């Protein structure tokens, strides 16, 4: 591929993304229903979270199933700063992101020497440890959790009683930023290093790639954005407890859209989230009332179908069409 066509391809992707953001941003003018907006917000949130996960898990190839720890750290940092010290969540979001990034570096220092499955297991164990700590930490609400104060609508404290639009636009911007960061990285020194580390760490090292530092940078960046997502979630739901923000299930939910959509690709996480989240929400809402778990069966079957038909992720559908068209 020539440099010119590569640059034009990247420019085209940026244009597509811009058009998509504008189109999605216009949706609330037609959709007034809070439940549909709720699904859109969750979809964008998981797109952003999965995009953040994709930085470490997809591009750098370090599969983490412990991202719930970073998510929970973000949620708890902003909520504790808000409820205990009255600090607006905007600051808490950044503080939570920095704390999560710092923790990711500490964890990375110890764990990035582990390869493959051992690293995956270590991330699970560390996240579970975090969950247990928060379960027993009285000051942070322990198992009872923390409820965010209930008050008049406020941009400063990012709380809105019935209005979903502020949450919607925040999370849209958040998803766009994580996409943009990934887009920027794809063509940067780090991006190339990360993919080299993913493909073959020994070969990369012999070519002068700083393997350890690459992993650390990817982990810190990924953790930062995941924690911002956690802080958003806490504001959106207005109640957090360790069970609802730090369980293993969350780690899976962050990885799943990227894996389904196309791991280590620019569009995979967004595509995966756009399919998975409406699917899980709608099947639960319209089939979940029976108590027979039909919604979960349908959900599981669809995931299996997609995995069987497109093992490389749904993004493969688009590239294939392009290839056959060419």
């Amino acid at each position, binding site marked *: 591929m020539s440099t010119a066509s590569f640059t034009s391809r990247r420019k085209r992707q940026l244009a597509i993304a811009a058009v998509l953001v504008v189109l999605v941003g216009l949706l609330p003018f037609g959709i007034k229903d809070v*439940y549909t907006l709720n699904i859109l917000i969750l979809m964008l949130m998981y797109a952003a979270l999965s995009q953040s996960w994709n930085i470490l898990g997809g591009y750098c190839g370090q599969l983490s199933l412990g991202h719930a720890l970073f998510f929970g750290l973000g949620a708890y940092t902003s909520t504790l700063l808000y409820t205990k010290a009255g600090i607006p969540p905007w600051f808490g979001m950044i503080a939570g992101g920095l704390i999560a990034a710092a923790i990711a570096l500490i964890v990375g220092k110890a764990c990035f020497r582990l390869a493959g499955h051992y690293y995956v297991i270590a991330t699970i164990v560390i996240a579970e440890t975090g969950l247990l700590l928060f379960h027993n930490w009285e000051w942070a609400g322990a*198992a*009872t959790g923390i409820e965010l104060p*209930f008050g008049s609508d406020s941009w400063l404290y990012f709380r809105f009683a*019935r209005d979903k639009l502020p949450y919607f636009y925040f999370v849209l911007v958040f998803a766009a930023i994580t996409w943009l960061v990934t887009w920027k990285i794809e063509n940067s020194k780090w991006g190339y290093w990360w993919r080299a580390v993913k493909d073959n760490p020994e070969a990369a090292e012999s070519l002068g790639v700083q393997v350890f530092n690459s992993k650390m940078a990817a982990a810190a960046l990924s953790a930062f954005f995941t924690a911002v997502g956690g802080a958003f979630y806490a504001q959106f*739901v207005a109640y*957090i407890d360790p069970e609802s923000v730090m369980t293993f299930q969350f780690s899976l939910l962050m990885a799943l859209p990227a894996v389904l959509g196309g791991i280590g690709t620019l569009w995979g996480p967004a595509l995966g989230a756009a399919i998975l989240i409406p699917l899980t929400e709608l099947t639960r809402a319209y089939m*979940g*009332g029976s108590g027979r778990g039909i*919604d979960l069966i349908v959900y599981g079957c669809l995931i299996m179908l997609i995995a069987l038909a497109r093992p490389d992720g749904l993004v493969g559908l688009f590239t294939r069409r392009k290839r056959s068209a060419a």
Partner: protein
Amino acid sequence: MSFSINRRNLLAGSAATLALGAGAVRPASAQTKEVVIGALYPLSGAAAQIGVDAQKAFEVALAVINEKSDLDLPLAGSAGLAGLGGAKVRIVYADHQGDPQKGRAEAERLITQEKVSALVGSYQSAVAATVSQSAERYGIPFLSADNSSPSLTRRGLKYFFRAAAHDEMFSAAMFDFLDAQRKKGQKVDTIALFHEDTIFGTDSANAQLKIAKERGYNVAADIKYRANSPSLTAEVQQLKAADADVLMPSSYTTDGILLLKTMNELGYKPKAVLAQAAGFSEQALYDAVGPLAEGIITRGSFSLDLAKKRPSVGVVNELFKKASGGKDLNDNTSREFMALLLLADAIDRAKSTEGEAIRNALIATDLPGEKTIMPWSKVKYDESGQNPYADPVLLQRIGNTFVTVFPAQAAIADALWPMKK
């Protein structure tokens, strides 16, 4: 005694409800208004069985509300809600899977899409925290059927109500019982607390410690142990040395079994064991320890013994048995049945499906305990939305069964004190 609710009527009733539920277009009966109530329960995941049982309890409650019978319960005497021209009540279920975020989203869906007049739920207290906030934001009353976290009614919410007891009321009832024993001339001066170290045991012991101080009981021992401990010998030796009049354990099943077995091995016999439900409500514990549990007292929300004093209990239990395939009403299903009845009763008195009017009717609720299937003395909400008259029951293990020994309006026998060994 004849009750006009029989199986056939019940089935016809549910069929009619189903027909309405399917949104069948029937122009002839278009003038019959329908009241929709949203029920939020875990219908999939680890606690799914709770939600499925709750659906059966609501099914029975709907039959009582929508059919005419001579049960001594609110709304039993008329078909549908008389205050709304005989409108039938319909339930829309939502599955929150025990997740606070899903609970909030589902509550909003029920309110904005299904246009429910009120909400009932939700088993997990964490979910009730978010559901009640959504209900508050839309001005839709939420009646908690079975959430027991005390903090829920302490948040100053206007649209949140709870007819059943919360955890601290359970502990208070245990001390009410000890006070009653004192009045009878028993010597009850010292107590020993024995609790596990997770949230349940810690909260329970904290409440008990506070009440014991207030009411002048001497806490001879306050022993916290590691949940699922392999051995409790050291702890039981401490208990034996303290030799309190009453032992109050807050333990889950396996720890409860180990406690009773160790007490037997070390020859420790307090005058009474007064347990905070949990493991001591589980059949598994009694199967495991057999005669060692004889005379133990535990607290509960409901008892079938009430049927002897409140005949409607027996009839409702029979209906529930039919609906659920042979299960008796328990602590959860009895509260769920009653919650829907209380909510429908408030809507009936409000003569409106507007949130504000229903809220005012809930505030005005003043129902004597005899008109419920619960051991409560009455239903009347305080300014926080809590019903302070929701007395729990104390049950003593005699032979192979439980006997209700407290409070007076539910008791069928006096407690054996000191308990036999």
